[in-house]
């Protein structure tokens, strides 16, 4: 049963290997409903791995630990089952699928999720009505729907497409993997507006990012520093600013001396 006390997501002592390399090394993180957490950290610290593992990407060995989403253990669930349960990953590098148009993928995805929840599937008209406003919000032109998924898109278009999908699928937990990278200022604003419009007490978010600039626009409730496969420092909004000014070295030194 989901109660006020049940966290949206609870990660306990998570150890993850890829091949011979240990990437996550005893990671703990609890995210309550309605919270936005930013995860920052140097390159190779395991930020993207965390997002991928939560979404159920194959190719990682989970050697220890537990992940529960709304009270349910999800580590044995297939990626689509996690998606249907309400976990959404905005990809750092959205994938191109030649010949499959955007509208088709998104409608099929939405209907697969609705079906899994026991809701009726939407027909083409209902679907168009639903995404029209989302497209306007993301400033996406309507001919975009008939183009192949991410094929020949600019970096900014790909990222806006991710947020369009998120707006349409209305997840409970959104994992945004470096959604700000490769965006110019205008695109960043559009993307940030999209993200902010989804914030509500029933929905949580994890923003994986290198830079502070997204966090100026999407204010996190918590900021964590990931280094060496675990969270080494947590704080509020001000921590991001400090990291932006001072880099990560001081955090790592602090951890080593502690």
């Amino acid at each position, binding site marked *: 049963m989901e109660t006020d006390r049940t966290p949206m997501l609870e990660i306990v002592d998570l150890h993850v290997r890829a091949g011979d390399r240990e990437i996550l090394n005893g990671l703990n993180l609890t995210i309550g409903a309605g919270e936005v957490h930013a995860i920052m950290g140097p390159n190779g610290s395991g930020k993207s791995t965390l997002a991928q593992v939560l979404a159920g990407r194959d190719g990682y060995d989970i050697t220890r630990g537990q992940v529960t989403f709304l009270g349910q253990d999800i580590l044995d669930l297939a*990626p689509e089952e996690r998606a249907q349960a309400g976990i959404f990953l905005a990809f750092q590098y959205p994938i191109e*699928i*030649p*010949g499959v148009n955007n509208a088709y*993928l998104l409608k*099929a995805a939405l209907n697969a*999720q609705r079906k899994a929840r026991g809701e009726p599937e939407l027909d083409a008209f209902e679907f168009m009505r639903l995404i029209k406003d989302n497209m306007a919000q993301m400033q996406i032109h309507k001919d975009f729907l008939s183009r192949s998924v991410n094929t020949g898109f600019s970096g900014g278009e790909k990222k806006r497409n991710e947020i369009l*999908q998120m707006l349409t699928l209305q997840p409970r937990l959104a994992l945004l993997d470096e959604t700000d990278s490769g965006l110019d200022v205008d695109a960043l604003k559009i993307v940030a507006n999209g993200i902010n419009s989804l914030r509500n007490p029933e929905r949580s978010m994890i923003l994986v990012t290198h830079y502070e600039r997204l966090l100026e626009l999407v204010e996190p409730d918590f900021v964590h520093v990931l280094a060496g496969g675990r969270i080494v420092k947590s704080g509020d909004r001000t921590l991001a600013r400090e990291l932006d000014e001072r880099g990560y070295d001081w955090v790592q030194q602090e951890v080593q001396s502690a």
Partner: protein
Amino acid sequence: MSTEQDDVADLVQRKYQHGFVTDIDEDRVPPGLDEDVIRLISAKKREPEFLTEWRLKAYRHWLTMAEPTWAHVRYSPIDYQAISYYAAPKSNADAPQSLDEVDPKLLETYDKLGIPLHERARLAGVAVDAVFDSVSVATTFKEKLAEAGVIFCSFSEAAQNHPELVQRYLGSVVPYRDNFFAALNSAVFSDGSFVYVPPGVRCPMELSTYFRINAANTGQFERTLVVADAGSHVSYLEGCTAPMRDENQLHAAVVELVALEDAEIKYSTVQNWYPGDEEGRGGIYNFVTKRGDCRGANSKISWTQVETGSAITWKYPSCVLRGENSVGEFYSVAVANNYQQADTGTKMIHIGRNSRSTIISKGISAGHAQNAYRGLVRIMPTADDARNYTQCDSLLLGSECGAHTFPYIESRNRSARIEHEATTSKISEDQLFYCRQRGLAEEDAVNMIVNGFCREVFKELPMEFAVEAQNLLNVSLEGAVG
């Protein structure tokens, strides 16, 4: 990643949905082939003498030929004396004039295949010349076609009612000497379709034939001839399924297309012969010769095919671009799963000035299948400014299958422009994960990606056929994840 590989093995398995046998009395010639059998077939069909003679010449020539071995396929030797060369549903000794006269069991068979014939004909405005085993049993929309002057009938009828047309065009594109299987077909062909579109006529509807192999151990030898006279236009659809069988069945069809000046023929095939079981036993051997002759200036022939069936496919729908400014097109999706073997492609022979051809080939391999594309582009010295564009893409599902490309390019004219692009790819883990992360089940994700891969070909198919082709593809690859 390793788990996904393991899934391939289990998931590729599925039973052929159209595997059943209709129980109908047959009028069958005993197995074996000699001149008497050929005379018997010809007599049963009340053929004019020139045709009997032509069959015999073909037979005598066939005796001098050896079975080809160059294709990238393997199978045990075929015993041509063990095959029965003629079978006709007995209850229809005189072919019925309407659907009401058709054996209800036959109609039931079509229903099982999801082809409600009368419905389909009425709703879709499609004229259907359905071939069941060797004799045509239902022909619809004849009147409407007759009004336009279009002749669309079984080959046997054509031989009786339009002998001059048959004599003029039969073997003019694929002579009986062409190859081993074409010679065999010419000697023993049982039935097929005949189309003649008179000058300047645009055929008022898509012409469609559904046929299937039904009698055990009966080789089926279809013969199709489509002639588009000057300035005419016709679109022909061919689709087939076959019931499950334990023994391999030989299918050696010949299709000849003739396009005269300014004429256009569009020939679409969705093919779903029984491919054999998971071990590759019992599937259809499909050795087909298909060729179109762009005989007149500005003529155009377009082949579109979606191949998902057969244990072995050996098939190269080709265009001879004789006319000035003539155009040849080949759009193909070939799927091979389990132990299927496909060696398929096309030939574009450029003879006329400024002739152009386009080849788009999409090969999909899954399971233990071997899928080969073999394509010839030949530019003759007379073909000034000829152009060809070839795009040949292969998609692999799993790691036990193979894709092979054998392009042959022969240019004997310096003004020719020939482009060839080829890619081989696997469905990427990234693509699958992306779709699944959005909530799609693995199989739906594979179907979506594969259909996307084939889109350039599917969009060439007539609308309803395109939907059917997609469904067929989904069924053929159910669970084949790589």
